[in-house]
Structure formats: structure tokens, C-alpha cells
């Protein structure tokens, strides 16, 4: 058994992405379930990997930090996948965990082709039952499937959604081994010719604990100011439906649903959202769902824990007052 590997992602400032701390925690739990004899390692590929690698080492016993200077000015995922392929020891069945977001998917797809692997996607749960047992939610949440790898599959990749586990550091910190990148990559490196910051970049919804989301019922960009205030008060991020994004009230990065992001916060407060299937698939696994809607028969009533029937501006404003200033 060659081991479990976590492919880490970093934030723009070089720190470790929260989703990677969850992956690392998940990998440790899996190794424990598998009997404790499987090595758990992490790999960080970045122009300057040291900060994230040190952080990752608080979660797993062994971390390889690959300094890849090309990553400073080139698209990350394919470069990273090649370095990961160099680093991981593949003497026996090997499990690689990546995130299920845009970068994690790109790494997974690249490794799949580079190493002739097998992949299971969008895991909502990974456990060890005589092998990897991977659950995912399909068909707009109507069904949960359990999948396994075939016996012959040696390089096994799982892309894991955020918030499937709560990150917890290991009892004792691990070691970091620093490596220089190997030979020139075999895949064409794609140049980043410019980086453009969006005006007023919002808190990311990917791994937010609380999301306050607005739909068509919010009515205007100004309406989203109330959504933002509630999100600030609850310590969360602002989400939106496709209708609100299409109307130009809020950027695409905040869109939740079929063609946006899939999220799993502890609290999802939906304002003026009817709960169409395209939106539902992006948020139905949230811990608690509260909807504020004028229409008591809106589809969201079928999968919310609480439905407040009323005007979202009135109820939202009253809720802000009720909660008072943030302590």
C-alpha cells in the first residue's frame, strides 16, 4: 500500500486553503479506519510553497513542498498535477484527494490522464470499508450513490466537496520535505498575461459557515445591501441565484446552483428565493435552511427547516434589529 495523498491548494496570499485542511483531516480519518498502517502525506506545489506546507504539516505527518517557479506566471493546475505525479510513490494502490472546485477538478482530470488513473467526483463522504467508499449526491439531490474503485485501479483519485468534514490538526506536527521542481513539464504551460482584481471582491462562498443568499425577490443591487448586512452580522458570505446574477445585481462568483457553485454551509438563509431545482442542487445539503419568502407555496418550503412568510426587506431589517450589533 503506497499511501494516501492530499493535493493542497493555496490562497492568493500563499496560505493554505481551508478546503485543504479538511482534505488532510479526512485523509487521516481514512487511514485510521483502514487500520493505521497507511502513510498519509500532503503535497504543496507553488512558486513559494513554504507557508502553506508548514500549515499542512500541522494536519498530516509528512508534507512535500515543491517549489515550482513557473507557477508564479502560469496556470497552476496542470503544472501542479505534473509535480504531484513526480512526487507520489506509486508502488501499490494510491489514493489522491483533491478539492472539487475549479482547481481541484483540473488537477484531478490531469492526473487521471497522466497516470492512467480512476476518479470518483464530488464526494460528500469518503470512508474506508475494505477499500474507499465514496458517496455523492446526484440527480439534483434525489439520490445518493455509493461508489468504489475496481480492484485493478492503482491510482485512485477522489475530488471532495468543501465542508464534508471539520478540519482538526493532528496530535503532533508532521515534517516538511522541500524539493525543487523536476524536469521541464511535458504539458504546455499556459502563461498568465494579466491578473485582474474584481472591484470589491466578496467573501468566498466556497467554504463559508453561513451563507445569506438572495434571489429574484431581492429586486435590485440595492436590495443586496441588506443581504450583505445580514451576512456581515452572521459572519457569513453573500450568495445568489442565477436570476440575480443574470440581472447583474451580483457577480457570478457568488452564484449557487447547477451552473454556479455547490455549497454546504451550516446555515443557509435564503431571501426571495423560490427554490427552483437549478438552485436547489447547489445548496440542499446545507445544515439548516431558512427561507424568507412572500409565497408560502414556493418550492423552497419543501426543503427548508423554517419558512418565514413575509416581505424580505421587512423581515430582514427586523432580524438585523433583533440580532443587534455584532459582539
Amino acid at each position, binding site marked *: 500500500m503506497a499511501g494516501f495523498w492530499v493535493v493542497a491548494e493555496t490562497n492568493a496570499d500563499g496560505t493554505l486553503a481551508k478546503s485543504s485542511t479538511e482534505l488532510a483531516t479526512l485523509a487521516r480519518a481514512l487511514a485510521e479506519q483502514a487500520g493505521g498502517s497507511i502513510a498519509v502525506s500532503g503535497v504543496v506545489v507553488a512558486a513559494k510553497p513554504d507557508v502553506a506546507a508548514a500549515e499542512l504539516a500541522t494536519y498530516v505527518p509528512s508534507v512535500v513542498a515543491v517549489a515550482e517557479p513557473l507557477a508564479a506566471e502560469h496556470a497552476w493546475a496542470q503544472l501542479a498535477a505534473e509535480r504531484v505525479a513526480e512526487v507520489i510513490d506509486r508502488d501499490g494502490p494510491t489514493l489522491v484527494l483533491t478539492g472539487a472546485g*475549479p482547481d481541484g477538478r483540473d*488537477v484531478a*482530470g490531469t492526473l487521471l490522464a497522466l497516470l492512467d488513473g480512476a476518479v470518483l*467526483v464530488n464526494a460528500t463522504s469518503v470512508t474506508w470499508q475494505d477499500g474507499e467508499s465514496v458517496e455523492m449526491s446526484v440527480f439534483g439531490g434525489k*439520490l445518493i450513490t455509493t461508489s468504489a474503485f475496481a480492484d485493478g485501479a492503482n491510482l485512485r483519485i477522489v475530488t471532495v466537496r468543501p465542508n464534508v468534514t471539520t478540519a482538526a490538526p493532528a496530535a503532533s506536527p508532521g515534517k516538511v520535505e522541500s524539493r525543487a521542481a523536476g524536469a521541464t513539464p511535458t*504539458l504546455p504551460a499556459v502563461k498568465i498575461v494579466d491578473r485582474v482584481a474584481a472591484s470589491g471582491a466578496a467573501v468566498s462562498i466556497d467554504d463559508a459557515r453561513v451563507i445569506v443568499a438572495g434571489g429574484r425577490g431581492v429586486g435590485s443591487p440595492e436590495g443586496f445591501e441588506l443581504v450583505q448586512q445580514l451576512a456581515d452580522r452572521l459572519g457569513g458570505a453573500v450568495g445568489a441565484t442565477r436570476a440575480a446574477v443574470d440581472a447583474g445585481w451580483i457577480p457570478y462568483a457568488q452564484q449557487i446552483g447547477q451552473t454556479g457553485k455547490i455549497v454546504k454551509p451550516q446555515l443557509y438563509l435564503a431571501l426571495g428565493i423560490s427554490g427552483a431545482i437549478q438552485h436547489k442542487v447547489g445548496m440542499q445539503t446545507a445544515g*439548516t435552511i*431558512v427561507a424568507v419568502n412572500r409565497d408560502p407555496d414556493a418550492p423552497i418550503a419543501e426543503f427548508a427547516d423554517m419558512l418565514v*412568510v413575509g416581505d424580505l426587506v421587512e423581515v430582514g431589517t427586523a432580524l438585523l434589529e433583533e440580532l443587534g450589533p455584532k459582539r
Partner: protein
Amino acid sequence: MNIVVLTKPVPDPAAAAEKLGPDNRLDRAASPAVINGNDEYTLEAALQIADGHPGEVEITLLAMAPAGGAETLRKGLAMGATRGVLVTDPALAGSDAWSTAKVLAAALGTLEFDLVLAGFDSSDGVGGVVGAAVATLLKLPYLSSAAKVEPDLAGKTVRVQRISATGFDVLEAPMPALVVGTQLLGTPRYPSLKGIMGARSKEVAQRSLADLGLTTDGADAVGGGAARTTVTAKRTPPARGAARVVRGPAAEAAKELAAFLAERRLV
């Protein structure tokens, strides 16, 4: 310029009739098929490139699907694509992501292209890994999460705005290249009546595994029999209890809502 758009026939999510068969594979007869929603955004991007360069761009739809997929592709042809290519073979039922990538890469090997466009993910599989795998197999420059695709036909390069956590990165690569697009590429157009009529006479060429030089045996085997992953069980998720419904004046409702959040330790 030649653009190939990967278009996957999927069960129509709007019909909400998707199910797995007794073999735990997708029951394709249970639900009407449509072109995957995310693939329509990339098709729209291809059509806009063609609109900007009249007479210079041909668009080929490439799909791997059961034989009925040819009919599903008609809508894309009606929107304005030039032709379709459908890889169809009974042995492909139950293919995994690796097989799918291998088959699409082999099919692309028989086509001329400057750009391959793929959708962010498919509504039935939701993996979003096949585009990267195809690019890797063909050693093509890979530009993903695109909000905008701008090919330079004369310079044979392509620029993409890739959505990032903080805004977007502008990527540039020589063509041929593979681009994975997002919804931001633009709302897909409706087929015109003329387009619908014209689509009837457009060609959808069919290719079998043998046509592509692929096999269902040995280490490089593709298809359902060679799948490296299997669905072992399925269950219906536990239903949430009925929602607690709160009515009445906003102040009262807000009080109840705040208490509910406190009770669940969410504030």
C-alpha cells in the same frame, strides 16, 4: 478556423425524471435527453466567434452517447453548428471518466481543430474532470473556467479570462488549445426557424470504437466493461422534516427566527 464543441447528451434536469437502472447505470430511457446546459454556453461562445468572422469558422459538435444522441445534437446544429460527430457503440455504456476522455481524445485525433471547447461540468455526472483529461492526453494547452474566449485567428493564439478567487486571470496560449467555459460566456441563443429547418440536412457522422482504433480488451481497454469505478449502492437522502412556517408581523417573525438560530447555535 475549426472549433470542436464537446456536447454531452444528458437527461433533461428540468424533467426531473433521472434514475439509475438495476445495474446502477444511468437509465437513459427514463428521461428525455438534452444537450448538457453548460455545453450550450460554450457552443454559444463558438457561435459568437463565428459571427465575428463570417465565413471563416466551422463548428463541429462532438458527442459520445447512445445512437439517439444524434437527435439531441440537432438542437446544436439548429443553433448554428456546422456538423456533428457522434461516437456511439454499445460497449461504451457505463464508461467511466477515464474511458470517456480516452474516446473523446481519439475522436479529436480524427478531426481538424484550432479550438476545443468543453463545458464546466455535466449535469448528470457533475465531475468536471474530462476536459482536463482530454487536454492532457492530447498535450494541448488547457485554459479553464473561462468567462471569455478570444481567439486571434491570424496569430493562432487564444486569450481567455479565467475566473479566479479574486477576479480573473488573463491566460494566453497558442492554438490548437482546449478551453473549458462557464456560464459567463453568454446566454445560449434560441434556434431560429431557419436554423431548425437547416439542421435537418446537416450531417451527424457516426463513429464506432473500431473506427477510432479503440478496443475493449487489454490494458488500454475503454467502455463499460473496463470501468475502473462502479456504483455499488444507491439510496434516497433522508427527507428534511416539514418546514416550521412562521407568519405574522415582521418584528414577531424576526424574533422567532432569531430564537430558532440561537437554539441551533447559529448566531
